[in-house]
């Protein structure tokens, strides 16, 4: 277990060291208007939505599934809330809008769960339906426009601070809650059992379907909250771009964290590390001044390196070569 997390930790440390060398001001922290301000705080704030979605994704992947629709669900949550708020500066309206959005997201999760657990459709296909259609729904809700809101209560979700950014506090709270409910009860073991062999676990008396259904609903609600964070951060809902490709970031975070896509054993700490690595990478690109044209190549090289050093085979091959040379 500890060994598995060693490599992601090293990757994160290496990225931070790169920042320390190139732009030492990245680590400067100060208090600005009563909250922390600095590069590391940005990493936490902007990484919060990815982390939250990755937590949901971890459980889905542990059941041998995958959820591609989370980005679209995030866009729907943002769209519904901002359309509901409209021009109102009222905190109550914002809360009501968010509640409606999250209930809707839970319903979308039920739909995913129905396709996967109910109809037995392959998860990648089942959630692809909502990935494509979901953005259409979000466009329909916003009528293709960017909806700008001016609501202080809503702004708190993504841009607010209680010393630390509110968004990361929410994500960490969810992480803690999931860790408690899955690791201190048998739930985590049951999820892993379903992932290893759904049929065997069903025969052993585990309610596989209910568990699969539950993780998809949970993933959708996480995606919904993440969507609220993303749109609240800029006080606007943009159906085209909110949560675009975030499913890929989340899957990557889960995989970097050492959870196998084949289902079964999962690591929440690994997911936390994976999310931090991805956001640190993005922020690093901005701070050290990688040219826009080579940004994607730079990211790809880092991700490939991280994945390779995690693979025992690749490591063995490398060390074998060293021995051979010497």
């Amino acid at each position: 277990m500890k060994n598995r997390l060693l490599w992601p930790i090293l990757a994160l440390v290496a990225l931070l060291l790169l920042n320390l060398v190139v732009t030492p001001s990245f680590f400067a922290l100060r208090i600005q208007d009563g909250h922390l301000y600095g590069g590391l705080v940005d990493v936490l704030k902007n990484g919060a939505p990815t982390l939250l979605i990755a937590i949901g994704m971890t459980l889905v992947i542990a059941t041998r599934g995958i959820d591609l629709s989370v980005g679209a669900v995030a866009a729907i949550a943002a769209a519904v809330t901002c359309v509901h708020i409209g021009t109102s500066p009222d905190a109550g309206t914002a809360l009501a809008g968010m509640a409606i959005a999250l209930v809707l997201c839970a319903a979308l999760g039920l739909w995913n769960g129905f396709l996967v657990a109910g109809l037995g459709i392959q998860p990648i296909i089942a959630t692809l339906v909502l990935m494509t259609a979901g953005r259409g729904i979000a466009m329909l809700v916003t009528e293709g426009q960017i909806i700008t809101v001016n609501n202080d209560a809503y702004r708190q979700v993504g841009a607010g601070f209680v010393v630390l950014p509110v968004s990361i506090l929410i994500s960490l709270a969810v992480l803690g809650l999931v860790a408690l409910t899955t690791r201190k009860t048998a739930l985590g073991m049951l999820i892993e059992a379903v992932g290893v062999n759904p049929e065997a676990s069903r025969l052993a008396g585990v309610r596989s379907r209910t568990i699969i259904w539950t993780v998809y609903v949970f993933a959708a609600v996480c995606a919904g909250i993440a969507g609220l964070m993303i749109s609240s951060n800029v006080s606007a809902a943009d159906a085209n771009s909110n949560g675009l490709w975030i499913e890929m970031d989340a899957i990557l975070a889960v995989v970097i964290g050492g959870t196998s896509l084949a289902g079964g054993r999962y690591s929440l700490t690994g997911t936390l590390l994976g999310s931090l690595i991805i956001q640190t990478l993005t922020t690093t690109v901005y701070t050290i001044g990688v040219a826009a044209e080579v940004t994607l190549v730079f990211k790809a090289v880092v991700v490939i390196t991280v994945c390779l050093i995690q693979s025992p085979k690749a490591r063995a091959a490398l060390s074998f070569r060293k021995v051979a040379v010497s």
Partner: protein
Amino acid sequence: MLKKITTAASVIALCALAACGSGSGGAGSGTGNGSSGDTITMGFAQVGAESGWRTANTKSIQDEAKAAGIDLKFSDAQQKQENQIKAIRSYIQQKVDVIAFSPVVETGWDTVLLEAKRANIPVILTDRAIDSDDTSLYKTFLGSDFVEEGRKAGDWLVQNVNGPTNVVELQGTTGAAPAIDRKKGFEEKIAAKPDIKVVASQTGDFTRSGGKQVMEAFLKSQPKIDVVYAHNDDMGLGAIEAIKAAGKVPGKDIKIITVDAVKDGMTALANGEINFIVECNPLLGKQLMELAKKVVKGEEVPARVVTVEGTFTQEQAKAALPQRQY
């Protein structure tokens, strides 16, 4: 049994999708041959309704067609090239007098435009160009000059700052024509004043979230930022949020120049949070109708017509905002 239900469900879904497609593609169908009599019939294939800019573009074309007495057949391609090709084919079958469209993508138009050419129907491109070796496929291209927009932004900066000035640039989507050209035009102009330096430049993908995240990173890595040049209003609006969170005053401590002049941007300009906006005018309906009349009469038209575009200072924005259509 379950399989049958799934198959049936997917067939129904496919039919529904097809129905949607034909509904939008054939918005103008049903009317017979339009070229009879003196009135000009124009077939217009719009990209979609992805932004306020596009909606204003559509409205301008519809209103001006009515004012010019041109019979307009309008279709919305919902961002899909195949829908646009379908619409253009239906216009050819209806024997309209002139076809105009905003190509979704740059390539893949040769076949359908050749069909139009054989049917002797002139074609006008609006807003976006196509990439084809055969320039005889269309009569003219009416749209913005993105390089000129960049030059206007650069001009204003050169005239309005003194002494050493550090500029950070928020680029549009890497590889997109407006991003490349707006960067080029801007650099051309500021080269005249060596005091003005672009100290950091990164893509914000034309979105508010992107603009905010990149600006947050710039604020930490750059010791001194005097001016933000954003390739569109949305990224500029994101940057404003980041600047505020850093405890600085947008428009005063850090000057902001953007391109587009959509409503949210103009509002921020009128409030003093943006300093200068270069217009990217969607209201090209009037120019389009004039061109269409000339083309139908067989008169020569220039191969490239640039839309009439202005610029806005804070005072001009205050005056213009009440009548702003988008």
